[in-house]
């Protein structure tokens, strides 16, 4: 059907207009990025969606609900931020689809709440002016009223409400202020006359666009909608006007004939109208709200000092991971050992005891002890996200990123990858250019995520000496920093390769808004970190628990008859090799032997393709089953003591380094693969990209580990084992 508008408002069925307003059941939160929509959503619904001080935190729609005064349940939709209804990266399109009644599931809001940042009112009113013309009931939430007040900005709320023709409610979402008036305004909004355009087009413009508006109305749009859509079609890229190509081109010609530049008409008209409102309603700031931020940026964005601050911040994080976490980790390890001892003492020797002690406690316990590291990592990431530093890091990296073929904006999803690749890949929705977005998706999993942390910490803790360099930085934390840098550099290099081969395309110029710096709220931080820790423990209690049990079973059966001639230790070792796991390990061994790994490491790697932490739990289980009965020594101690048949240590420094490097590069995460399939286009296309991603990362991991092992062997003067 050619005549159906593809990129515009979906026609409303003529019979749908109700005459008696029913109380609203569905409310959509829209607004510019970083205005506090999600904070407001959380305050309204009691949910805990992610919040952060940079544009593009929310990239998908999330539904929640609250109870209205009369007990009715009102559904609330939190949406990604958008600057206007005309521009569209994938995340913005989600918001547009809901507003323009095009969302797949037919979710149509009864009331639209436009969340406005009171400190940047002028720019925010641009989207407001567009939303007013949709014909839906609108309430403006004048959020961050506290910040506006602090900077000395006075906004005349009744006057603003009068000028816009819709209710305006000041709110402070972070403190939950203004929620009751907002809920009342939402209920009342359906009874008010529908809002609409509050300015008139100049006669020449009106004449030029009239035929286009008429054609839009013929396709079922209301008059108001047609007026909005006509301006939108004129302002967007000429190649995207779709079904109305001819009419739009004629309107453009008519405008040019009248000496008007078609592309700039919408913005000029709206901002002219907005200027009047701002003059009338805002008494300007005594202290500009950005003064402090600008002063901080003077240092943070310095050409030399800026990157150094960035590196120093990272080094500080890793130092914290080792020095602060160690006492807590020791305490947890002691606790796990204690539980193991109690179970050993109370249960009779046998399979059940072995399952609990060697399988469950050794497996899950070895992962759970890394909880302090996870908490510290997410606290640090949280501070970075909430302070406003993320956008600065992106700006600092723009020069590097441009050489790679991406722009600085792509660095924000990459930084999120330090937490977890799944939300990071979702965050690429903020990148408008499809090729840039795909290139970013392909390299994000190279950024070391929190699931690698237990593996890194285990190996570094066991094999890198805790020597202090320069008096204060430990060699261990430097090694950890090196692993993160290695992953980051590899991600940049891989992006450069993708952008020059499969995803060739011009470098898009950067457009990035820098939010003012803010003090991270300790309460919000605590909530996020607690949420992350719960998630980590839940993984330990589900995926890792299940795998630990499976691996224990594989390591226990089939049994070898006891040979009294052999020593206990030799008997256990033989039994382990005779077990199903041992046989699998022997089959894998040739593939990993060039990297310096024995079959036990090979099996642990294979198992960790389900989830990286499983490497640690598998190690725990293997050495639990193979170790002394009821022995619950620290895993690091066990690893250090492990010997080959010829008495040389299994884990020499080259082996440990090779393993570390392998984990930097290998993609071992089912969830990442699933999300890549979906975000890279879904279906066969998505699977192809996911397969490529998995393949190239595995090849990189193997190759880099091989080189590391060989080089380290030569440097350490060792012989090939």
């Amino acid at each position, binding site marked *: 059907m050619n005549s159906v508008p593809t990129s515009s408002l979906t026609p409303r069925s003529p019979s749908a207009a109700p005459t008696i307003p029913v109380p609203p059941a569905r409310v959509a939160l829209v607004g510019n990025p970083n205005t506090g929509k999600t904070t407001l959503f959380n305050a309204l619904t009691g949910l805990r969606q992610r919040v952060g001080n940079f544009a593009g935190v929310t990239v998908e729609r999330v539904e929640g609900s609250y109870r209205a005064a009369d007990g009715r349940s009102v559904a609330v939709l939190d949406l990604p931020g958008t*600057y*206007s209804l*005309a*521009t569209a990266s994938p995340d913005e399109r989600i918001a547009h689809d809901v507003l323009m009644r095009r969302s797949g599931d037919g979710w149509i809001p009864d009331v639209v709440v436009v969340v406005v940042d009171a*400190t*940047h009112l*002028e*720019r925010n009113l*641009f*989207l407001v002016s567009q939303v007013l013309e949709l014909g839906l009931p609108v309430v403006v939430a004048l959020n961050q009223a506290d910040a506006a007040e602090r900077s000395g900005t006075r906004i005349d709320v009744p006057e603003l409400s009068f000028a816009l023709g819709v209710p305006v409610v000041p709110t402070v979402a972070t403190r939950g202020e203004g929620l009751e008036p907002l809920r009342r305004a939402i209920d009342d909004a359906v009874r008010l006359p529908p809002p609409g355009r509050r300015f008139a087009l100049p006669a020449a413009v009106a004449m030029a666009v009239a035929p286009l508006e008429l054609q839009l109305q013929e396709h079922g749009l209301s008059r108001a909608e047609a007026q909005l859509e006509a301006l939108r079609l004129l*302002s*967007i*890229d*000429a190649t*995207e006007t779709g079904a109305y190509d001819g009419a739009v081109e004629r309107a453009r010609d008519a405008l040019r004939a009248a000496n008007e*530049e078609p*592309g*700039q008409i*919408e*913005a*000029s008209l709206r*901002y002219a109208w907005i200027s009047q409102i701002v003059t009338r309603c805002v008494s300007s700031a005594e202290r*500009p*709200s*950005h003064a402090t*931020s*600008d002063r901080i*940026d*003077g240092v943070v*964005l*310095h*050409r030399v000092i800026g990157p150094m601050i960035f590196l120093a911040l990272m080094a500080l994080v890793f130092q914290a991971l080792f020095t602060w976490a160690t006492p807590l980790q020791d305490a947890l390890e002691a606790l796990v050992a204690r539980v193991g001892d109690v179970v050993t003492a109370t249960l009779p020797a046998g399979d059940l005891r072995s399952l609990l002690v060697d399988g469950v406690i050794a497996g899950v316990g070895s992962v759970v002890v890394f909880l302090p590291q996870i908490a510290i990592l997410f606290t640090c990431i949280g501070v970075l996200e909430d302070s406003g530093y993320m*956008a600065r890091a992106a*700006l*600092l990296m*723009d*020069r590097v990123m*441009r050489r790679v073929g991406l*722009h*600085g904006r792509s660095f924000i999803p990459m930084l999120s990858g330090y937490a977890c690749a799944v939300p990071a890949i979702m965050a690429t929705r903020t990148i*408008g250019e499809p090729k840039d977005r795909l290139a970013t998706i392909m390299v994000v999993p190279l950024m070391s995520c929190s699931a690698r942390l237990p593996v890194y910490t285990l190996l570094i803790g066991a094999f890198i000496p805790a020597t202090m360099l320069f008096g204060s930085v430990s060699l261990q934390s430097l090694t950890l920093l090196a692993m993160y840098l290695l992953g980051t550099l590899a991600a940049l290099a891989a992006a450069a390769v993708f952008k020059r081969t499969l995803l060739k395309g011009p*470098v898009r*110029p*950067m*457009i*990035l*808004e*820098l*939010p*003012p710096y803010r003090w991270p709220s300790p309460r919000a931080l605590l909530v996020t970190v607690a949420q992350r820790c719960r998630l980590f423990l839940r993984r330990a209690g589900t995926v890792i628990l299940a795998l630990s049990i499976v691996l224990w079973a594989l390591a226990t059966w089939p049994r070898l008859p006891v040979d009294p001639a052999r020593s206990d230790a030799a008997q256990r070792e033989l039994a382990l090799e005779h077990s199903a796991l041992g046989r699998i390990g022997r089959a894998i061994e040739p593939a990993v032997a060039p990297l310096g790994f024995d079959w036990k490491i090979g099996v642990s790697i294979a198992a960790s393709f389900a989830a990286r932490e499983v490497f640690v739990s598998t190690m725990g289980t293997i050495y639990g089953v193979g170790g002394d009965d009821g022995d619950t020594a620290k895993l690091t101690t066990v690893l250090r003591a492990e010997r080959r048949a010829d008495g040389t240590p299994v884990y020499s420094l080259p082996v440990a380094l090779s393993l570390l490097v392998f984990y930097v590069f290998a993609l071992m995460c089912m969830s990442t693969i699933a999300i890549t399939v979906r975000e890279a286009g879904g279906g066969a296309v998505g699977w192809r990209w996911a397969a490529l991603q998995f393949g190239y990362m595995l090849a990189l991991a193997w190759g880099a580990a091989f080189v590391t092992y060989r080089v380290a062997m030569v440097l350490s003067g060792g012989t090939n084992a």
Partner: protein
Amino acid sequence: MATDTVPLFAQPNTVRPAADAAGMRACCLAACAAGSRATVVRLGCDDSDACRLRALGLNEGTTVAVVDDRHGTLLDVRGTRLALGTALTERITVQPHV
């Protein structure tokens, strides 16, 4: 472009009045140093980039202040801080204020 013409009777010794914009040549935004102010004359970039810039408040006729020019250009646009890459600022024509 009309704004590009050099005044025929430029007199090097006379002090230009501050408001006399015609006395300054239009230039690209990338050429504006930190601390200077300028009014946008033309967005010569891609239509889609121009559309986004206008939504962000950087439309023709807007006066902007250059806050920082160390990493691309950091602008004060209607009270917000907007960082633009050089590829963009080179194609934005502005009229610098004296």
